[in-house]
């Protein structure tokens, strides 16, 4: 290749060897998604080949030289029915197959480990239940279903991990969720795929998939000292939530123990399930979410707590039904340095902990 300039040659070699053609399959859902993808590719190819073959062969067979006089044909019901019904059938297969996949991707299994993700211009913040915070990266173990609960603090973003074939919009003011189970350790791309302003293309990061043992080590090495629920407990106290939600017989607010995933009757007459989204709404917009039998006296916390704060509170309330959590919360609150967060005073903390003990 001496007639090609060496610089150009090097350049060509370099980028031809970095030639990605298909993304890695690193989650349990990826091979399933790819199976449908390749089925569609196959159908498209067959369809395209049929159309091209027909056009080319008719063009040759019935070109004006060979076939100077056209034969007028009105149409053919049989043929037209054929090319209506066969594509329709194929499209319906794709529809059903796609729908099965869609429901699988957006229905997290019950044993999934929950990680919260907050999107903001222009970064991703991930919060593990143990209190590990990451920015523009996400560490996950293999072999464990992970549920992401995603929310945006400003505009629409979209959390996309191509190697896992999953993606979910981060919506301002509303939780959305997606789950996956990683299979292959490695580092994969994390993209924001919804255009979100100036630095949209910089809102990227790495998903680091680790073997379970390595992940445990990472968790231990990256902890900030507090779990999310502990942070939540502090907030619960510092915002004086426990002034009303205190489980006393004359309490002005309902007890929050075991409230997560329970059916609630609201004073509006509706019955709702208290899931993450409900808990969030009830904190930020309480007048719309008054439990039956209680006066609508709770003030709104809109604008007073960050999305991360709300997540901590939600995580705290979610865990109020577990003895294990309660004990752990008790133990660590006693050990924690008082100054952290600056707001929580020991006096305020005590009733909160007490409340945890007596659900």
């Amino acid at each position: 290749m001496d007639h090609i300039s060496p610089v150009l040659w090097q350049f060509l070699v370099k980028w031809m060897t970095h030639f990605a053609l298909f993304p890695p399959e690193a989650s349990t859902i990826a091979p399933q998604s790819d199976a449908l993808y390749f089925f569609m590719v196959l159908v498209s190819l067959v369809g395209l080949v049929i159309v091209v073959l027909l056009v080319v062969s008719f063009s040759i067979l019935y070109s004006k030289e060979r076939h100077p006089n056209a034969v007028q044909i009105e149409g053919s019901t049989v043929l037209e029915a054929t090319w209506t019904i066969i594509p329709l059938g194929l499209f319906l297969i794709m529809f059903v197959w796609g729908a099965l996949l869609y429901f699988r991707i957006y229905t997290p299994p019950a044993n999934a480990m929950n990680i919260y993700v907050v999107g903001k211009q222009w970064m991703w913040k991930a919060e593990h239940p143990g209190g590990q915070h990451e920015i523009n990266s996400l560490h996950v173990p293999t072999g464990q279903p992970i549920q992401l609960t995603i929310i945006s603090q400003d505009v629409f973003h979209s959390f996309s991990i191509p190697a896992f074939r999953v993606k979910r919009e981060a919506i301002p003011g509303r939780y959305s969720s997606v789950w996956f189970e990683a299979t292959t350790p490695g580092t994969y791309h994390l993209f924001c795929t919804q255009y979100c302003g100036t630095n949209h293309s910089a809102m990227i990061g790495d998903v680091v998939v680790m073997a379970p043992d390595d992940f445990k080590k990472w968790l231990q090495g990256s902890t900030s000292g507090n779990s999310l629920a502990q942070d939540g407990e502090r907030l619960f106290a510092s915002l004086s939530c426990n002034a009303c939600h205190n489980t006393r017989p004359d309490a002005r607010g309902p007890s929050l123990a075991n409230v997560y995933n329970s059916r609630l009757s609201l004073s509006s007459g509706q019955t709702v399930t208290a899931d993450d989204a409900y808990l969030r709404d009830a904190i930020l917009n309480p007048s719309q979410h008054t439990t039956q039998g209680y006066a609508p006296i709770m003030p709104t916390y809109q604008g007073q707590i960050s999305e991360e704060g709300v997540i901590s509170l939600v995580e705290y309330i979610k865990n109020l039904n577990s003895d294990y959590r309660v004990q752990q919360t008790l133990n660590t609150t006693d050990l924690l340095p008082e100054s952290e967060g600056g707001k929580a005073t020991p006096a305020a903390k005590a009733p909160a902990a007490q409340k945890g003990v007596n659900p």
Partner: protein
Amino acid sequence: MSTIINLPDQSTARIPKMNFLTKENGLLSWLLTGDHKRIATLYLISITFFFFIGGALAGLIRLELLTPQSDLMAADTYNKVFTMHGVIMVFFFLVPSVPATIGNFVIPLMVGARDLALPKVNLLSWYLYVIAGCMAIYTMAAGGVDTGWTFTTPLSTHYLNTHVISTGLAIFVAGFSSIFTGLNFIVTIHKMRAPGMTWFRLPLFVWSNYAASLLMVLGTPVLAITLVLIVLERTVGIGVFDPAKGGDPLLFQHLFWFYSHPAVYIMILPGMGVISEVISTFSRKRVFGYTAVAFSSVAIAVFAFFVWAHHMFIMGISNYSALVFSLLTMLVAVPSAIKIFNWTFTLYKGSVTFETPMLYAFGFMGLFTIGGMTGVFLGATGTDIHLTETYFIVAHFHFVMVGGMLMAFLSGIHFWWPKWTGRMYPEKISQLAALITFIGFNFTFFPQFILGTLGMPRRYAAYPPEFQSLNVFSSAGATILGVGYLLPILYLTWSLKYGEIAGENPWQATGLEWMTQSPPLTENFPEIPIMDHEAYDYEWLERQKQKEVASVG
């Protein structure tokens, strides 16, 4: 290679002295005209102007994406460039392309009318288009806008300080131009058909424009009010889309796609009409299954209104509504498949020739098949999760819009050029241009399917380095495509003076527009024709010719 071109003897032939181009002279005679053919010409010039602005912006995008870093432009500039590319191409080129130019020119001729039903409304529609276009250019000159052509809230309402309002108003005004065109077509097709021109004798071009007009008239007002809400949200903060005020940011996307999905069919249906005319003419055969093709246009128009949420499968709409919209999306794909096969079988036992419009039509069929099938990838909910918001979707809609619609537009321009100007375009070089366009197109957009599958997000000014090779392919293809689009401008302009005299019916086509002089008189026909044969009746045409020979002889 044989051809059906049948030109008058060039030594004696003249362009008719009296025609719509020569009837009156002077700028005012154009600016105040009510003649649908002159307005179509005005539209043709203006949309070509915007096409080249949009095309230049596309060139800048491809140039920036040659390298992984954002080095040619800052990210902000890149965002403005792709936003303006989208806005201009969608609202100022694709939506008006075939209807307002070719449709405006040939629909009255095809139905055997002297003009559209509402000539002044037609002129008003062009003025609105020009005003809107000026507003868009003002926006660009004043610093641009970086919302993306989809104006997603709350980004567009609360987080950007660029010229969102002037862009929104520009599209609002352009929307009225499109509503007026649609309205005019509907009234004309209902009320102005020549005697004997029954609905099922109408050329399929008229059917498909009729279907597109319904979409324009019913869909565009929704877009208009959505944009007004954006403007109000920005100026007075009414909070319809603002979650902090109890609004719903997703509501915007429902409203926006309620128009913008049907808009896709506003763009492609008239193009399908062109393909029906061209394929029939150059195979000398009636379109296979005329009724099925006619009704599939209407079916597409009807279904088009019920699939909008397939743009939002990952956006947190309920899983069950995603199911419904996915199913309906699959149903809307069927009429398109029907059309493709009907066109293919129109060739069967025909007598096929390969003039430029036919080459573009073949290009359309191949690219539209790919574009349509990849649409099914996105319509199936499961695969949509991985592929949406990536370059896969960019490739998909460029296959449909550029590979489909632009090919159809060029096919139509070449097909009706002799009628429009009275002169032929140069055949050889235009066949070459069609081929270059086809090759350049595939080079540009096919790699983007692979990029999308790899996960490269759209609207990225910078991207991970392993995506570079495919982006280089794409950018290289874009330069070829650019040549393919410049050539027609050059030789079509050349042909205005030097092209061969076309005569009344160079293609031996059957539509009523070919039964009058080229270019037509201002009043189209010396007397209103009487339609006494079916559409695409080539045997009738033969008999006519023999009769003429007999009577002259």
